[in-house]
């Protein structure tokens, strides 16, 4: 028994672990039920903590085949996204959709149906998954795709591991001309301006805004909007153009241990938010950044989650439909800033249309905030939940660590159907996480 938590370090639960290295090991590990598969533990809350046992998937991490002509990769679920990039970017292939960290497994990416800065254009990771092999409670493996076992395929993507264990997948990478991104950044004075800018930036491949969520009044929601395109070698400096798929080595920084208290308080968060905005404003314009800096800025600080101290932190991420987004976002930001609870990292992103069974994204705007795991912040997040419900929004399960079941079920009518499908797959008792228990999934 060891204490296990998600990336946020909250909540912590005593957990029994299994580390299968073969399919037979895996079948044995899940035989007694109430288990959940765990990838690299980057979901923030309790998504990957099993009710009875947690099955770590890092032993099942073989790459099985790769087609250099069309970028089609077959790999086991425990393969890290970092390793996919390391292996195939030198040949001109990159993940078609990537979350904000490369330290996730393919299985985790599929289970959470992750999105990236290109959701408005390319949709979620689901769109690039051609097939899955999913192990059921009795250890039988089902090959599934859009045409074969289509129900299992659809509900497993975004199903948080609750339909079975994702064993391997066939996914399509995207061809890229270099390892560099041409970034265009823009400082925007308030929420209206940033939404207008997003709506005008539909053609950009990547777009994301960092929001200063401390500012109030007329500058409520002031942001740095960052657009990105894959850079072609002829745009790069001579050195970079000669080896377009190589990037400079970086010094990795590490947060050595969990602080006994949080380094973040309202003062430091206020100072950081202000600095970030003014720095972004100063540097607005076009620049070339390597993929690692552009997509994974926080990966350069290993263990950054520890800056919140031992008690950990929580993420709040919701999506609001286009029609209510302006008004809803304003209410969310206002409530946050009035509580004096300025979040350290606040990210706003435009989503495009999404057509899938239980995935998080939908056409609209998504806002992600993080807060220290204190009772006061939990109370604040309940208010944010209510605002989201009032604006027909929904919540990202991969970020959740404390939501009430009523909130989830009220926000998302698909939840009842998801439960029903779990029943049909014989997965209800077999696959259970602390989160699925808490949320009555």
């Amino acid at each position, binding site marked *: 028994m060891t204490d296990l938590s998600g990336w946020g370090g909250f909540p912590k639960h005593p957990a029994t672990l299994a*580390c299968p*290295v073969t399919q037979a090991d895996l079948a044995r590990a899940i035989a007694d039920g109430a288990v959940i598969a765990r990838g690299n533990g980057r979901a923030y809350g309790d998504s990957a903590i099993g009710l009875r046992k947690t099955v770590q998937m890092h032993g099942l*991490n*073989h*790459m*099985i*085949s*790769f087609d250099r002509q069309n970028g089609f990769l077959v790999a086991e679920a425990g393969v890290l996204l970092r*390793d996919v990039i*390391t*292996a195939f970017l*030198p040949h001109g292939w990159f993940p078609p959709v990537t979350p904000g960290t490369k330290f996730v497994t393919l299985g985790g990416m599929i289970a959470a149906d992750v999105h990236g800065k290109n959701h408005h254009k390319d949709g979620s990771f689901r769109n690039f998954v051609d097939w899955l092999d999913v192990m059921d409670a009795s250890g039988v493996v089902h090959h599934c795709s859009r045409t074969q076992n289509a129900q299992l395929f659809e509900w497993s993507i975004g199903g948080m591991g609750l339909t079975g264990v994702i064993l391997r997948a066939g996914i399509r990478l995207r061809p890229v001309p270099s390892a560099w991104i041409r970034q265009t950044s823009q400082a925007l004075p308030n929420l209206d301006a940033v939404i207008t800018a997003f709506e005008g930036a539909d053609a950009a491949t990547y777009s994301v805004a960092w929001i200063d969520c401390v500012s109030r009044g007329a500058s409520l929601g002031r942001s740095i909007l960052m657009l990105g395109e894959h850079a072609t070698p002829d745009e790069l400096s001579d050195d970079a153009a000669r080896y377009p798929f190589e990037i400079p080595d970086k010094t990795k920084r590490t947060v050595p241990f969990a602080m006994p208290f949080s380094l973040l308080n309202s003062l430091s968060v206020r100072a950081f938010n202000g600095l970030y905005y003014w720095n972004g404003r100063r540097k607005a314009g076009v620049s070339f950044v390597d993929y690692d800096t552009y997509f994974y800025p926080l990966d350069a600080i290993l263990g950054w989650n520890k800056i919140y101290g031992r008690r950990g932190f929580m993420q709040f991420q919701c999506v609001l439909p286009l029609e209510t987004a302006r008004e809803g976002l304003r209410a969310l930001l206002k409530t946050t800033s009035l509580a004096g609870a300025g979040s350290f990292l606040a990210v706003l992103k435009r989503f495009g249309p999404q057509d899938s069974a239980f995935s998080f994204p939908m056409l609209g705007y998504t806002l992600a905030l993080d807060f220290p795991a204190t009772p006061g912040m939990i109370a604040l997040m309940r208010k944010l939940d209510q605002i989201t419900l009032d604006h027909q929004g929904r919540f990202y399960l991969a970020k959740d660590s404390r939501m009430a079941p009523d909130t989830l079920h009220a926000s998302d009518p698909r939840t009842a159907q998801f439960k029903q499908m779990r029943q049909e797959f014989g997965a209800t008792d077999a696959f259970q996480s602390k989160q699925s228990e808490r949320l009555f999934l």
Partner: protein
Amino acid sequence: MSKGTMLLLGAKSDIGRAVAHRFAAAGYDIQLAARNAAALEATKTDLALRHNIAVSVHDFNVLQTDTHAGFVDALPALPDIVVCAIGLMGDQIANEQDFDAATRVMRSTYEGPAHILGLLANRFDARGSGQIVGISSVAGNRGRAKNYVYGSAKAGFTAYLSGLRNRMAKRGIHVLTVLPGFVNTQMTAGMDLPEKLTAEPEEVATAVFNGLRKGRNIIYVRPIWFVIMTIIGSIPERIFKKMNI
């Protein structure tokens, strides 16, 4: 472009697999050897895809010492580096009663590895180059009631590597002894190991790779183990024999 070839004996062990990835990432071609080599096909494909290098698999049984020479002859090329990650811990209680089991532990951990490394050392010597890595164990530093069958075999292996290093030093062939301490592997699954003293297989692999590059002779993967083993080694026998560690 290949940096050379590394032969891995014991390719199914967690440490072995991590070592293979570490060397492959640095551009070495890899020869994987273990019993039932067919089961290594997945590892072979994985290594080749991730690191864009050549990988071959070879049947190898450390206990059948009479097949070792044939095994080396059948390799596509005499490797530049050999890493031996073979060892069998067995169950100490069973080993105390069942001498066949104890013999299997000793032969798998000492006799077999020493036999194949001695043979390769001679081939390296004839060629005039080569590097040999033996993954031994701190369990061999002092016999303890808890695992002395395995420990004594590792003690023999450590001494063998030490002697081989001494002999080969004048011949330009380097021998590295690796003493990992606790490692989080299938061998230790279910044991309650202290986190600060327990290395991941990847740490062992990096220690092997860096140790070889720096020409180190004996390495403890986590330096704390040198301190621990120095203390354990300095306890007088009349006290040590009554201890339960």
